[in-house]
């Protein structure tokens, strides 16, 4: 490796770091991604011209790139905004797969009895890379509804997974310490793939963003390990950055959901016990339901309305309708703000992305801490397709699965309107007593339909 290539790698590494720094702040995030992309181009540009390609080598490199570019670009361009998590899972998975394949190839080249400094990172890269590949594909399938989103569990599953993991460790040790034929890496690869599948199957669909983030960190570490094998520090720096930042991000994401990472990964929690919960809870409690006209009038003559968007708004694709309603209310002099709970929706930032798409001005999007004190001076809290994020059980029933999660204080508003299709619970599968509050009015129906009706009602009011 010449000095110039190394310097180019260093520049690339610096650009990755700068990109990551910019990515962590909303204002510069987009530029950050572009900065990292420039780093990537530099790293590739410095590598390619200096290689001594075989004839086959140059052909497969070109063909590979010609196949990969359109797949990546078209996939990324055409995916719907709501399907982004599964797309990220897919792109992450192929990265993990590539790392595993690179490690296998490198070991085949080195022949029998590679040095520990090569064997160890290679084995690591193969195992982690294949776990990430298979796990990401399962995550994709769950989110894309190719597989059921509910946890797939069976008795003794933890034990099976534990045995699988042990087998991998044993095989790895054997390989590094004893084995002489490289071909034994094939069973390792296969075991890694099986573990990846087995590991993600019992995790609920809505926990997938956390899992994807973790697999993303895995791929980063696999890439760093490949960097050790190849003695290439651009791979080491970039892979490690992703491994470290991804690990922390995974923790931050599960924290934001008010749960531990262990609970997300091994809790098999996330089963939406929809039917029964709805049935049992209705007993003995009365629910008040309103017509769009009633509620439209209530909104039109309010001084201040806070909109609490949730997962249902995304399902109903009602972001444009909600913006229209807000505009209509503002025309009449009503003050409108949006209260964004950190885990509203199904991926972090989901609501922000969704409402941004509908051009809701940024200033109106308020984070939980900013707005929680304002509910008490609010006339109407309009809860659109949200549920868990306003459930008082998080504050007052210690047994509840969401106990301890901070919630939006919608219950302090003078009136609460819930727009959802039924009395069914949300993601956490638990009943919400706020639905039965005397201050609450239900507006049943698909969020988008109901919103359109409200717009009409406000116009008429």
């Amino acid at each position: 490796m010449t000095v110039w290539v190394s310097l180019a790698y260093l520049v690339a590494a610096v650009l990755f770091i700068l990109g990551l720094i910019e990515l962590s702040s909303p204002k510069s995030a987009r530029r950050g991604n572009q900065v990292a992309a420039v780093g990537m181009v530099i790293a590739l540009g410095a590598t390619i011209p200096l290689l001594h390609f075989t004839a086959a080598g140059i052909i497969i490199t070109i063909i590979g790139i010609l196949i990969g570019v359109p797949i990546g670009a078209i996939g990324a361009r055409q995916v719907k905004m709501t399907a982004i998590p599964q797309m990220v899972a897919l792109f992450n998975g192929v990265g993990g797969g590539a790392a595993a394949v690179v490690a296998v190839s490198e070991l085949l080249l080195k022949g029998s009895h590679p040095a520990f400094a090569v064997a160890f990172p290679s084995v690591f890269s193969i195992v982690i890379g294949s776990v990430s590949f298979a796990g990401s594909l399962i995550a994709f399938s769950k989110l894309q509804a190719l597989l059921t989103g509910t946890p797939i569990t069976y008795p003794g599953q933890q034990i099976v997974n534990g045995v699988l993991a042990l087998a991998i460790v044993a095989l790895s040790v054997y390989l590094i310490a004893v084995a002489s034929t490289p071909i034994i890496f094939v069973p390792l690869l296969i075991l890694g793939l099986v573990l990846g599948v087995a590991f993600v199957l019992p995790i609920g669909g809505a926990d997938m963003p956390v899992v994807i983030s973790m697999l993303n960190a895995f791929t980063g570490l696999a890439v760093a390990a490949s960097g050790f094998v190849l003695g290439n520090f651009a791979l080491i720096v970039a892979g490690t950055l992703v491994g470290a930042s991804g690990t922390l991000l995974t923790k931050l994401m599960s924290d934001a959901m008010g749960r531990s990472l262990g609970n997300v990964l091994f809790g098999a929690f996330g089963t939406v016990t929809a039917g029964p919960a709805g049935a049992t809870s209705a007993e003995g409690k009365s629910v008040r339901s309103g017509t769009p006209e009633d509620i439209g009038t209530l909104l039109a003559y309010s001084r201040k309305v806070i909109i609490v968007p949730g997962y249902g708004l995304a399902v109903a694709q009602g972001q444009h309708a909600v913006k229209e309603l807000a505009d209509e209310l503002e025309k009449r002099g009503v003050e409108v703000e949006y209260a964004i709970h950190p885990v509203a929706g199904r991926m972090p930032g989901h609501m922000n992305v969704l409402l941004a798409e509908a051009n809701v001005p940024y200033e109106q999007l308020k984070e939980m801490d900013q707005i929680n004190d304002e509910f008490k001076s609010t006339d109407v809290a309009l809860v659109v397709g949200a549920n868990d994020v306003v459930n008082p059980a998080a504050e007052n029933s210690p047994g509840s699965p969401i106990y301890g999660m901070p919630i939006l204080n919608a219950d302090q508003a003078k009136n609460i309107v819930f727009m959802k299709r039924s009395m069914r619970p949300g993601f956490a599968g638990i009943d919400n007593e706020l639905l039965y509050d005397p201050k609450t009015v239900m507006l049943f129906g698909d969020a988008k339909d109901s919103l359109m009706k409200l717009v009409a009602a406000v116009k008429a009011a």
Partner: protein
Amino acid sequence: MNDSSLLNEFTIFVLAIFIGFEVISKVPTILHTPLMSGTNAIHGIILVGAILIAATARDPLQIVLGLVAVILATINVVGGFVVTDRMLEMFKGRQPAKPAEKTPPEKTAG
């Protein structure tokens, strides 16, 4: 690979861990998804590794592995950056801190 270069690589590895942690420790929730996606693109650097092994491929096994590695890694890089950009595109213009002063005030208050 000798001891000293391994040690150097290990040092770089350790320092990069700190950078990764420190940078992310300040990130707001709203950026979790784009950040996941952006870092996903960065590990696409494995394409450099893929090309390194593909370049010298001679026998059929090497050719197949090399081709697979290059395809997968390319999808990772290209898809990763593009999808992140699309996601972040929607954040732009929403914080027109300075420009906003020129446009008529938002109707937020009334």
